[in-house]
């Protein structure tokens, strides 16, 4: 039978509950700050959009050309091959040198990195501030008994400042309550903040990804030429071929 320590009940009201309340409030504040600081959706230059949409149009033509008859098909085929081989729909001039651009001179990449850094700072600064606060005010005494046993490895972390080497690890100081809160508050934020924190994090990661991946992407002229080749190779089969005989077959 192990010894039970008697803990002052006032500890609950003046240590445990204040720490949890402060952590919840700081988390909510942080999520509203990220929402305030995050820039609105960025505008894409219209030439870029025109380029991708022209490419999509060509792909659609390739996928569903069988609704056209032979004349329509041929005129459209010639149009697409001509436009895809010219540089009319390119969003920017194709440079001849193949040296990849330095990604840090690109302004869009810089913006993405900046917003990522802001998000990270907003994550780390409040957490380290709260940790310092907890360490400063609530150091060096036992606050609570955990309901589950832990191994002795946690002793140095969870009982920091308590100078009793043989104390059961289940008795822990305030900093461990801070850690438990840090890990476990996510459902509370979900219920209170209506997924605000999660959605901003998601939006950030989606924003940064395509910009970073820019330099490795294939050149636009290669894509356009490949598409032109594909359109050249289409074996056109119109649904109007022999339609009269088919209809008669159905209704006779």
């Amino acid at each position: 039978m192990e010894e039970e320590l008697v803990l002052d009940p006032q500890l609950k009201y003046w240590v445990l509950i204040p720490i949890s309340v402060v952590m919840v409030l700081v988390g909510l504040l942080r999520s509203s700050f990220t929402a305030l600081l995050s820039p609105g959706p960025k505008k894409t230059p219209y030439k870029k959009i025109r380029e991708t949409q022209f490419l999509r149009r060509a792909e659609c033509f390739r996928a569903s050309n069988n609704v056209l008859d032979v004349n329509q098909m041929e005129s459209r085929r010639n149009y697409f091959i001509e436009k895809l081989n010219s540089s009319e729909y390119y969003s920017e001039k194709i440079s001849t040198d193949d040296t990849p651009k330095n990604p840090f001179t690109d302004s869009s990449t810089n913006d993405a990195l900046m917003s990522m850094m802001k998000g990270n700072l907003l994550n780390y600064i409040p957490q380290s501030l709260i940790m310092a606060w907890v360490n400063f005010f609530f150091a060096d005494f036992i606050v609570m008994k955990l309901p589950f046993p832990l191994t002795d490895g946690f002793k140095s972390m969870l009982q920091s400042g308590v100078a009793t080497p043989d104390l059961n690890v289940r008795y822990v100081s305030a900093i461990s309550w801070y850690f438990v809160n840090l890990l476990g508050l996510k459902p509370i934020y979900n219920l209170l903040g209506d997924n605000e924190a999660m959605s901003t994090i998601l939006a950030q990661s989606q924003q940064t990804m395509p910009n970073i991946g820019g330099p490795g992407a294939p050149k636009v002229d290669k894509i356009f030429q490949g598409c032109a080749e594909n359109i050249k190779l289409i074996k056109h089969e119109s649904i109007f071929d022999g339609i009269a005989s088919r209809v008669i077959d159905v209704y006779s």
Partner: protein
Amino acid sequence: MSKKRELIYYIPNIESNKKDLQYVHDVTSLTLGIGSGILTLESYKGFLLYIFGYTAVNLLFYFVCCNKKAASFFRKPFHEIFLEDILSDMPGFVMMWCLTYALVR
């Protein structure tokens, strides 16, 4: 012909369903934490309560909310309802367990 029909999901509906499921999971883990703290369960008994209670709520969700047709509301119904969140909701449960355990004793 009809056997090989492909299920097409409307993404916003899938996400809304997922949000509802997430809400159920959050409330479940917090409530189970409060419950096991009030019962002053210790060590493995608390975790057992968590696993059984969580699975029971998921079964109710499967039979009542999804009307046994979870495949039409979720992409990977079994995985999403029963397995995916049980570990990531554990810290919330542990937090409420510790808090109410400390408050009750």
